C-alpha cells in the first residue's frame, strides 16, 4: 500500500511550501497518472508499462484475501482521485469494487468509462459457467478470475492496458507503446526460459487450497486432482480433509499448493498425514521475498514448484 513513481520536481523555496500544501490537499493530478490497482499484480503491470508516468496505489497486498476486502474509507478516498482503476474483474471484487465506485463519485472510473479497466475481462477465461448455483460455492459465473499466472494471457492484457493508458494519457502514448514493446520482448524471452525450466513439472498432479492456480497449472500441464476447500470459498473442514487423505493414499499427488494469504493448517495437516510436500507459492507480487515484480513472481513460483517435485522425487 504505497505510492510509487511519484517524482517531485525541483521547486523554489516559496513554491515548495505552496507545493507541499497542494500535495496535502491532493497528490497532484498533473504530476502523474493516478492509478488505483485492486491487486498487486496489476500494480506491477502498471509499473512495467507506465514506469514513472504513473503513481500507483495498491489497494491490497499479497497477504490479503481479495474476495474479502471491505470498502473502507481509505480506499474510497483513493478511488476518488484515480484516473484509472485496474482490477481483475470477472466478479472477483464483486463485494467491494461496485460500492467503492459508487461512494467515490469519480466519473472517470465508472464502468464503461476509459478509466475502468478489468484485466480478466480482456482475455478468455476458463470455467465460464452457463449456470451457477450458490450450492456450488462461491463460483464466478464469469469464469475463473485469477488470470495473472498465465503468461500468455498476461501478454494480451499488457497490450490492452498499454492502449488504454495511451487513450487516457495521450501525451505519453508513444512512451506506453515503447514500454509495452520492450515488455513483450522481455516477457517472450522469459516465457521461453520458464517453459524450458518447467518441463519436469509436466504431467504432475497437485492438490490446491483454492482455485487460484487454475491458469498457472493449466499452462504448466499440472493436473489439479483435489481442492482443500470442499466448495470454492468454503474453508477446509475435517471430514473433507480426511477424505482427501484417503484419496492421497490410493492416488498421491505430487504437491499441495496454497497462497501466502491462505491458512497454513489444512495443507500442513494433509502434508503430515500423506507425506506429500505442502508448498506456499507467492501467488502475487509481494507474496514471497523473491517475488518483487512480475518476472520474479514467475521465477519464484517455478522455483518453489521445482523444489517440491525435487523433494518428492527424493522420497
Amino acid at each position, binding site marked *: 500500500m504505497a505510492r510509487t513513481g511519484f517524482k517531485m520536481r525541483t521547486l523554489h523555496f516559496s513554491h515548495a511550501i505552496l507545493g507541499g500544501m497542494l500535495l496535502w490537499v491532493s497528490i497532484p493530478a498533473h504530476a502523474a497518472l493516478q492509478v488505483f490497482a485492486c491487486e498487486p499484480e496489476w500494480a506491477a503491470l502498471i509499473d512495467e508499462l507506465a514506469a514513472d508516468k504513473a503513481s500507483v496505489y495498491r489497494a491490497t497486498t499479497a497477504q490479503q484475501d481479495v474476495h474479502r476486502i471491505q470498502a473502507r474509507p481509505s480506499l474510497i478516498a483513493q478511488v476518488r482521485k484515480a484516473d484509472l482503476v485496474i482490477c481483475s474483474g470477472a466478479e472477483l471484487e464483486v463485494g467491494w469494487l461496485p460500492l467503492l465506485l459508487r461512494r467515490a463519485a469519480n466519473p472517470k472510473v465508472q464502468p464503461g*468509462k476509459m478509466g475502468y479497466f478489468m484485466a480478466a475481462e480482456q482475455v478468455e477465461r476458463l470455467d465460464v459457467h452457463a449456470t451457477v448455483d450458490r450450492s456450488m460455492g462461491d463460483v464466478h*459465473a464469469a469464469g475463473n478470475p485469477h488470470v495473472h499466472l498465465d503468461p500468455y494471457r498476461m501478454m494480451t492484457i499488457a497490450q490492452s492496458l498499454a492502449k488504454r493508458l495511451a487513450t487516457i494519457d495521450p501525451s505519453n502514448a508513444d512512451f506506453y507503446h515503447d514500454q509495452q514493446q520492450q515488455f513483450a520482448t522481455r516477457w517472450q524471452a522469459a516465457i521461453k526460459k520458464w517453459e524450458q525450466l518447467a518441463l519436469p513439472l509436466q504431467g504432475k498432479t497437485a492438490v490446491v487450497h483454492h482455485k487460484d492456480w487454475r491458469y498457472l497449472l493449466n499452462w504448466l500441464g499440472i493436473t489439479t486432482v483435489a481442492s482443500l476447500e470442499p466448495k470454492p470459498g468454503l474453508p477446509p473442514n475435517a471430514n473433507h480433509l480426511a477424505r482427501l487423505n484417503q484419496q492421497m493414499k490410493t492416488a498421491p499427488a505430487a504437491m499441495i499448493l496454497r497462497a501466502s494469504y491462505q491458512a497454513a493448517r489444512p495443507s500442513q495437516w494433509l502434508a503430515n498425514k500423506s507425506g506429500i510436500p505442502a508448498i506456499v507459492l507467492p501467488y502475487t507480487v509481494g507474496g514471497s521475498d523473491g517475488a518483487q515484480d512480475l518476472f520474479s513472481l514467475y521465477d519464484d513460483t517455478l522455483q518453489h514448484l521445482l523444489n517440491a517435485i525435487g523433494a518428492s522425487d527424493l522420497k
Partner: protein
Amino acid sequence: MTLIPTTHASNEMNPAISMILQGQYAGYEQSPDGYELPGFMLGGEAGLNSEGFGLGHGELVMSSNIDDRFFGKLTLAIADHDGATEIELEEAFIETTGLSYGLTVKAGRFFSDIGYLNNQHTHAWDFIDAPLIYRGLFGNQLIDDGLQLRWLAPTDFYIQLGAEFGRGERFPSGGASNDGKGTQLLFAEFGGDVGDSHSWQLGLSHWSAEVVGRQSDAHAHGGATETPSFTGDSDISVIDIVWKWAPQGNYSQRHLTLQFEYFQREEIGDVELIGSNPLETTTYDGKQDGGYAQVVYQFMPRWQAGLRYDQIEADNRGSDDAILGEAGLDNEGHTPKRTSIMLEHNHSEFSLVRLQFNKDESYENSDDQVYLQYVMSLGAHGAHRF
C-alpha cells in the same frame, strides 16, 4: 437461481436482485407486551419481537445502474403484522454515480446517514436487535423521504461532508412540517488506515426537525384510549467511532471490530394526550442521551462472537409531571441498560445462524432474553461495507 454468464457483477442489463430471509426463536422471562423505555416515547418498530417462533421481515432488493449517471435501488420489506402480510417500501432511491468534484446527490426514500448503524439494513447488524438508543429515539431506524448531498474531499485522508433534507412525516418527526421539508441533517465522516492491519472511521452528525404531532403508542386510560402527541423542536447530536483490526488486513481468518456511538437529543415543545377529555396538555423540555459500545470478534473462519453494552437516560421536564408520565416521558427513576452477548456461525458469506442472550434492564423488571436467529441472502452478492 440461474445466472446468464456475464462479465459484469450485477448483470447490467437487468437489476441485481436479492432476497433476505430471516426468522427467529425468542424466549423472554417478562411479557414482551409490558416492554417500555421509561422517559422515551416509543414509536416506529420499537418493542420486542413476538415470543416464540417468528418470522423476521423478509426483504426483496433490486438495484441497478440506470444509465451512466444514475444508480437506483428499491427495497421492499415484507412482514406479518397481526396476521396480515404487509409490504412496506423501505427504500426507494436514486443516486448519481460520478458527478465530478466528489459530489453525490441521492433522492427518494433512504436510511439516513445519521450515526454509523442507521444506514445498515437489519440483516447486516451484528445483533438481532437495535441498540436501545436507536430503539428509543428512532423506533429502530431513521428513514425519511428527501434529498441527500455528499462531498468527498480529494485527499488521501477520507473526509466526507454531507447534508440531508427530509419530509419529516415518519417517526420520530411527524407532521411533514415546513411544507414537507421538516428535517435536516448535517454530517461529517473521517477515516483512514493505520498500517495494513487497522482501519477506522469517525462520524459526527446533527439532525434537527420541526415536529408536528409525533404520536407514540396509545394506551387505555380510564376507559378512553389516549395517544401521546408531541409538537415542537427536536435536535439530535451524534458521534460514532468504528475501529477494525485484521492481521495484515486479511479478513478471512480473524478480525475484530470495535464500535461506539453516542446520541444526545434535546426537545422543546408541548405534549398532549389525544383522546383525553378535556384535552390534557403539558409543556415539555426533554433531554435524552445514551449509546452503546460493542466488540465483535471473528476468532476463526465462519465463527464470530460479540459483546454489546447499552445505556440510555432521559431527563424530561414539563409543566405537568402527571401528563408527562402518561406520555411515557417520566424516567421513573430508572436508567435503561442492557448487556448482550452473541455467537454466530456463517456457513458461507450468504448464510448466518446466531445465538444471542440479553440481560435487559430497559425498565424496572429486568428480563433475560434468548434469541436463535437465521439470516439468509439469496441472489446478488451483497456489498462488503466498512
